[in-house]
Each structure stands twice: as C-alpha cells, then as structure tokens.
C-alpha cells in the first residue's frame, strides 16, 4: 500500500518537474532564471542597462531624423527627399510623392512603425522594375551620398521609395520612443561653437541639470574625457557618435550630452513595460526553481526508496524477494519492450500535441510540449522496467532469466551431454554442425539480400532460421525433459536415503541412552531380587531392540537399493569357509555338524564380499536357530557352467514343521515360528534376498517336508573362470 502511494507521489513529482521546467522556460525567457533571482531590482539588471544603452544611441537617430524630416517641429511632407536623372532630365521627388507611390505598390506602416507590404497594389513590382528606372543623384536622408560614376545610383522608383520610407519608419519609431509624454527617458544634447548654440532635447522643460539629477543618467562633454554615469556600461560608440553628429564643423565646437531615466517610470513606455515583465518573470523564476528543486528532491527520494523496497514485502520479517508476474519474462524481453515503447512514444508524442493544437489552438513552445510528453510516456514504462530488473537482480536471477542464458544452456547442454554420453562426435554431427551450417547459410542469404536486395534470399533465410530454431528448441525440450526426469528420480532416491538415515538416527539415539542406563542400573547394588529380574528383562529387550533397529534400517536400505555395492572377484569357497569359521562357536553350541563340500579349484564369483558375508551370516544364523539339534547341515558349493553361475546351498532339517511357503518366508517380518517368541527380527531372509538381488543374484528357498534348503546363486566372474580353465 505504501509503495502504491509512493509510486503515485513519484509520478506527480515528475509531472511537477516538467511543469516547473515549463514555467522556467516560458516565464524566464531570454536570460537565465538564476540571474533573475540574483538581481531583484530591474533598474540594476543587465537587461535594463542594455535597453538604456540602446536608447542612448537611438537618441542620435532621433536627432538626425528629426533634423531631416521635420520643419518647425512638424513632419514636412513637401520635403524634397531625392533627386534623380531620368533620360537626361532632372527630377525631384517630394516625400509626399514617394509615400503615394509606395502606397500604390502595397507598402504600409504597421502599429510598431515597421514598413510592410500587404500585396494589394496598383503598380506591380515588375512594372516598377521595367518602367520606372531612375538614376538617383541626391538623397536627403543620406547627406553624404555622392554619385561616383554615371551608372551609380541606378534603381527603380519603388526601391527608392522603399528606402526612403524605411528611414521615415525609423523616424516615426524614435519619435514615438522619445515622445515626452510617453517616455521616461530624457535627453539634452547641446553643441556650442563660437557663441552659437544648438540644443536637441525631447523635453525642453527639463534643464540639463534636471536630467543629470535623475536616478539613472549619463553626462559627457567635450571638456573632460570622463563620462559621469550611474550605469555600469555605456555604449562604446557614444563619444564617436557625438563627434560625428556635430553640426558645427569647426574644431572649437563643444558638446554636452546628458541623458537620464526617471526610474519611477511615470509614463507608459518600453522601460516600464520591461520592468513589469522583469518583475513577473522574476517571480515565476523563483517559484519555478523552488518547485523544480522540491519536486526533484521528492522524485529522487521516492525513487530511491522504491528501488530499495521493491521486491520486499511490507512485512519486515519477510526477507524474501517477491517477484511480479512480469518479472518472470526474460530480461531481454523486458528491456526491448521498453525500447519499443520508447520508440512509439517518440512517434506518438508530436502527433498527440498536433492533435491537441487542433482543438485548443496553436501552442507556443511546441518542442517543449512534445519532448515533455514523450519523456513522460517513456518514464511511465522506464520506472517499472528498471524496478523489474532491480527485483530480478535482487532475486539473483537477472542472468538466470535471460534469453541469452537459455541459448547458452541449449548449446552447453548439447556439448555437455555429449561429453557425458561419450558420443561427442554423434552430438556434434547431429546438433552443433547442422546449427553452424544453418546459421552460416542464413548469414550468407542475409548478405545476399542486403547486397542484391533479393527477396527470395530473405524469405529463404527466414525459413531456414525458423526451421532450425524450432528443431533446436524441440530437441532441447526433449533433452531437458529427460534430464529433468532423471534428476527427479535421483532426488527421490536421495530423499529416501536421507529419510532412512534420519529415522535410524532418531531411533538409535534414545536406544543408546536406554542401553547405557540399563547397564548402569545393573551395576547398582540392588538387594531386591525382583528388581534385578526386571533389569535383566530390560537388558535383554533393549539388546533385542538394538538388533531389530539395525536390521530394520538395513532391510529398508537393501530393499530401496540405497546400498553401495563394490563388485569384486572373490572366491566362493574362501568366504564360506571364513563364514563357517566365524560360526564355529554357535554351531557347536547348537550341536550341529557342518559338512562343507566345494570343488577343488577356486570358484570365482563377482560380488561384494561384505554384503555376501551378511547374506551367508543370516542364513547360518537361521540354521543355528531353527535347525534340528544334533543333526547335520550340508553346505555345498556348485557351479553351473551353462548359466555361468555358482551357488552355495545350505540344507538342514527344521526342528519344527514348516507350514509356510518359501515365498512367504522371505517377506519382511515373517518368521518360521508364527508365535514369534524366539529372538530375531524376522528380517534376516528379507535382507538376504534384497542384498543377493542387488548383487545380480538370486536367493532360492525350497522346503521339502522338514528339509529346508536355501541357496545363494551368484554370477561367476567371467575372466577368472576362463583363465583357470585355460
């Protein structure tokens, strides 16, 4: 739940980041946002300075253009603005005429006093070019203009009108700019020469001193090199311009240049407008930056938290990494899905913005919107992708779940299993070689397709690729299925073995204590004969329990095949003789006469000596327990060359009638005496049978009246018999 909320917070903060970047780009256009924050006062900002600098030089345009176009403070329409030579005749053009001409060609002034052409004309451009060619000799707006060659100054009347009107437009612009009632910028330029004085000012009511006492001012005069000013910078060309515009051509002329700005901005002008814009932009920059840094902080911290917590359960005690369904996709699929989505987002975002524009009209900063949208779209999938990879990484299955590993596995499996089955050549021929061939072919066909753009090659390549991949995959599927089944089998065998080990441990541990403490009890001096009798019973039964447990564990191991068999060539005669030697005491006590018969040459069999001893031991034990006292027991070793086996047969006369079938006898927990009073676990024959079977042999029991016959048939060691016979 916490994670969902955090995810939502993260996305909201990302949207906020985009919005704040938007605010910064729109609100703080031209000029860095930091600059706005650093300088809270517009009057001290660089943008104010550059605006003021621009106006300081504009002043000279004002001076010059009013000088040209005005007479007695008013625009002189009758001003002869140009003189030209038309086929030898000298023609003068008044300003009024040129305005009329230009208007007929479609020129007009827009509200910002810029010369425009709207195309509605009575005199076309071609007509003008063809029929109104003139050679200009004099231009009022360019006093220094001089014809240097006869063809110089050849132009159409339209071009002349356009040129002149451009200056007129500039006149109107500066006139507006410095109009006394609509500006906060005041200037006073005074040139003096030999008592004559010429003053240019936009506000005659203000004296030079008034202007200089304004908060922002510049004062320069020809007497001192220093310019006194409140600005950090003034235009580089201010002094040269002052000198160049000097109407008195003599060296003794002097100039006084004073400009000032009323920074309380009482009039609506460009400066006031800029100040307002500056303040509003400054505000939005502050908010934008604040929002940006805050939302970045939130976004990063929530992302980091999510990255740490992803895959973990809300329950802190649960340390497991939980994977979502999507995480089980191969790594490459997840990554490529993201890239495909990114590609789609890149395509869709501009189109979406376009269609939005159709609804809500043209948007400024189209680029910003489309890149913001595409970023957002990518981000929506990027975060889950990264988190999915992160979860996989935490669960340590980034590589395990990748397709690359699967492919490596397929190849590795074939090569490995080839080594295991020692049919490497076979597997190489069947798998590796055809695959390499197929891939080589596909590569060749692709090159062919690329070079010759043959569609057949492409189709063939795809078909081969498809076929070989499906064959590989199918083969791999079968192979892994097989090895899986084998693994399962091995695992269940191991489980069985583990179970036996554990159960026997759990049985034997308490038994150890019982035996020890019964023995300790026996050592105590107890006068009561009844207690001693009880202890004796306990002693006997605990010993019997010990035999039973050992037999039980052995029986279950033998019957489940969890016994290690080390086959060796052993002498049947020897082992039977050894066994009889071990049993000498017991048979003697049971008053049995053992009669052993074996061939005069060694009978070599292939068996595990320790297990075979266990089998014979069990059979001889049975003899001692159940054979008729003072009878003979025959132990015969015989060979059967036809089946390549050797057998040891133990024959004895049972002391009690055997009312049981031989098959039943070898069942677990079945004993010759149904009352089960005698000692023994009833597992002896069962163990003997299982062990014989594990040694590829057979335990055959026959009952003929009171004659009990048990024979252990085992395979002969092949080599040895051949050697001895030869």
């Amino acid at each position, binding site marked *: 739940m916490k994670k969902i909320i955090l995810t939502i917070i993260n996305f909201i903060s990302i949207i906020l980041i985009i919005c704040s970047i938007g605010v910064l780009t729109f609100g703080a256009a031209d000029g860095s946002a930091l600059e706005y924050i650093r300088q809270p006062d517009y009057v001290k900002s660089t943008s104010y300075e550059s605006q003021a600098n621009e106006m300081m030089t504009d002043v000279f345009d004002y001076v010059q253009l009013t000088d040209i176009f005005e007479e007695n403070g008013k625009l002189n329409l009758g001003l002869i603005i140009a003189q030209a030579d038309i086929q030898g005749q000298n023609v003068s053009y008044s300003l009024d005429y040129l305005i009329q001409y230009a208007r007929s060609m479609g020129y007009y002034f827009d509200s910002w006093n810029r010369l425009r052409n709207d195309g509605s004309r009575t005199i076309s451009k071609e007509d003008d070019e063809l029929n109104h060619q003139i050679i200009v000799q004099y231009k009022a707006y360019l006093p220094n203009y001089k014809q240097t060659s006869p063809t110089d100054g050849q132009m159409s009347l339209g071009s002349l009108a356009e040129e002149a009107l451009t200056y007129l437009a500039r006149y109107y612009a500066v006139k507006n700019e410095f109009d006394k009632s609509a500006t906060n910028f005041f200037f006073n330029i005074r040139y003096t020469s030999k008592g004559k004085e010429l003053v240019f000012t936009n506000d005659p009511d203000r004296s030079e001193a008034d202007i200089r006492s304004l908060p922002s001012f510049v004062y320069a005069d020809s007497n001192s090199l220093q310019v006194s000013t409140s600005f950090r910078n003034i235009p580089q060309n201010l002094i040269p311009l002052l000198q160049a515009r000097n109407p008195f051509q003599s060296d003794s002329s002097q100039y006084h240049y004073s400009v000032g700005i009323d920074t309380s901005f009482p009039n609506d002008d460009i400066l006031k407008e800029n100040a307002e814009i500056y303040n509003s932009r400054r505000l939005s920059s502050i908010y934008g930056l604040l929002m940006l840094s805050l939302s970045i902080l939130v976004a990063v911290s929530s992302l980091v938290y999510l990255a740490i917590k992803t895959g973990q359960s809300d329950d802190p005690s649960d340390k497991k990494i939980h994977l979502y369904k999507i995480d089980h996709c191969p790594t490459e699929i997840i990554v490529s899905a993201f890239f495909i989505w990114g590609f789609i987002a890149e395509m869709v975002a501009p189109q979406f913005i376009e269609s939005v524009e159709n609804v809500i009209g043209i948007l400024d900063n189209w680029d910003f919107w489309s890149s913001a949208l595409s970023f957002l779209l990518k981000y929506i999938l990027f975060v889950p992708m990264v988190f999915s990879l992160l979860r996989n990484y935490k669960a340590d299955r980034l590589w395990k779940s990748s397709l690359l590993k699967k492919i490596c596995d397929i190849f590795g499996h074939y090569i490995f299993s080839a080594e295991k089955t020692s049919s490497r050549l076979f597997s190489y021929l069947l798998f590796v070689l055809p695959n390499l061939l197929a891939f080589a072919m596909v590569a060749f066909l692709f090159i062919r397709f690329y070079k010759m753009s043959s569609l057949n090659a492409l189709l063939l390549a795809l078909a081969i690729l498809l076929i070989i991949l499906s064959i590989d995959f199918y083969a791999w599927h079968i192979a892994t299925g097989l090895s899986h089944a084998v693994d399962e089998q091995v695992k269940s065998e191991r489980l069985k073995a583990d179970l036996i080990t554990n159960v026997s441990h759990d049985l*034997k541990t308490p038994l150890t*204590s019982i035996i020890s403490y019964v023995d300790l009890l026996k050592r105590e001096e107890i006068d009561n004969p009844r207690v001693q009798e009880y202890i004796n019973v306990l002693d006997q039964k605990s010993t019997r329990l010990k035999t039973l447990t050992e037999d039980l564990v052995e029986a279950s191991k033998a019957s489940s095949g969890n016994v290690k068999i080390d086959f060796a060539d052993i002498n049947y005669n*020897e082992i039977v003789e050894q066994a*009889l*030697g071990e049993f000498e005491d017991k048979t003697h006590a049971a008053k049995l006469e053992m009669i052993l018969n074996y061939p005069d040459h060694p009978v070599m069999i292939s068996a595990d000596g320790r297990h075979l001893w266990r089998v014979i031991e069990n059979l001889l034990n049975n003899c001692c327990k159940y054979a008729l006292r003072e009878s003979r027991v025959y132990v015969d070793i015989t060979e059967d060359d036809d089946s390549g086996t050797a057998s040891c047969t133990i024959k004895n006369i049972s002391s009690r009638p055997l009312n049981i079938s031989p098959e039943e006898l070898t069942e677990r927990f079945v004993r010759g005496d149904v009352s089960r009073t005698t000692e023994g676990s009833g597992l002896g024959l069962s163990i003997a049978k299982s062990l014989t079977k594990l040694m590829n042999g057979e335990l055959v029991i026959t009952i003929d009246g009171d004659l009990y016959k048990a024979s252990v048939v085992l395979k002969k060691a092949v080599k040895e018999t051949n050697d001895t016979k030869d």
Partner: protein
Amino acid sequence: MQTILVCDDDKQIVEAISIYLTGEGFNVLKAYDGYDVLEIMNQHRIDLLIIDVMMPGLDGVHTVLKIRETSSIPIIMLSAKGEDNDKILGLNVGADDYLTKPYNPLELIARVKSQLRRYTQLGNIGEADNGNIYACGGLVMNDDTKEVTVDGNAVKLTPIEYNILLLLVKNAGKVFSIDDIYTSIWNEEAIGADNTVAVHIRHIREKIEINPREPRYLKVVWGVGYKIEKQDSAKK
C-alpha cells in the same frame, strides 16, 4: 587425573558416558555442541575428546577439522551413521576411532582407555629399531620373548595363533587367503574343506580386539582372506 571432554546434543547420553568415565577415575567435562567444545578446549587441557557427529550448530566433523588445526589429542567419534562412507569421512577428518550408536558402553570405555594408553605411554614404541619387535598401532609383538601386547596389555596366544598373527603383522597390509596361511604355518598343502584357519583367526580376534565384530587390527577380507590393517604406529 586425565580429563575427557564428552560432547553430544543428547544430554542423557553425555550424562551416561560421564558416569562411566567418572567411575573409571577420569575427570569429565561436558559439551552439547561443537562451539562448546572449541570454547572448552581453549580454556582447559583436554586429554581425550568423545564427540557426536550429528549435532545442531557446528557438527562433529567440522569441529574435529577445526580442532585438528591446533591439537593432536585422541578423538573418538560417536555416530548413529553406520555407513562405511561415514566412518571413512570421520577417520579422514582426524578422528582416531569411530563408534556407531547404539554402542556398548563398556566398549566405549575400553576404547577410551586404549586411545589414552597409546597416546600417553606407547607413543615411541613403533620407532624402536629392534628387528624382532613388530608393532602395528597398539599391537606389539616381541619375537624374542614371544610376547604380545595390545595397548600395553599382555595377550596370551597359543603357538599357532601366535604364528598366524606374526605372519600377518610382518606383512601388514597384505591379504593372506586361508590356503596361504595354512601352507605357511603347517608347511603342507591344504586338503579339502577345513575351517581350522578361520576358527583360529576368530580366536585371535577375540583376544586382541575390543569388539571382535568390528576389528581394528585383524580384518576379514570377505571371500579373499585375512590381513592386518597397516597403521601409522609412530605417533607424536
């Protein structure tokens, strides 16, 4: 007084063993897992360790491995695991003896004494350069005096038993078949089925082994013959 450290996760077993050992005059320390053992061994001088294999925490095998890095005291392993592989593992990691549960407590005591005797008293006998003294682990045969001792205890053998054992000890590690032994001892060909040798061998085992069913010295190689297990008699 010799100190014996007993370790088993079953407290009653530890208690029982300690009763026997105390009765025999040993000083007994008790531990219930491998970590206890390592800690006690750091603090006390221990003469012998009896340790269970299957224990929670640090098991017997790992404990013994750890102990063997620093100490060479006798170690007897107790385990409910009776497979050959388990025994081999236990002996390979450094145990001197391996006893499977459920064991006879008297056998355990006998083995403890045997290990201690060998470790404390008989350490140098194997190195004696006397040609007429044959040693194999705790089993020592002096051919001059015709004396046989096991872990320092004299053993009485009949002349035939003595000769059979001497043959096997002289050729420790070599397997002799019944026929081989017969020809060597009686100096005549074995004729027909006769379990005389096998019976003698069993008698020898009963005299020299603590548990004749699980012999330490005279081993039966079933279906092949008999041998004396070759042992590293020179102990530090």
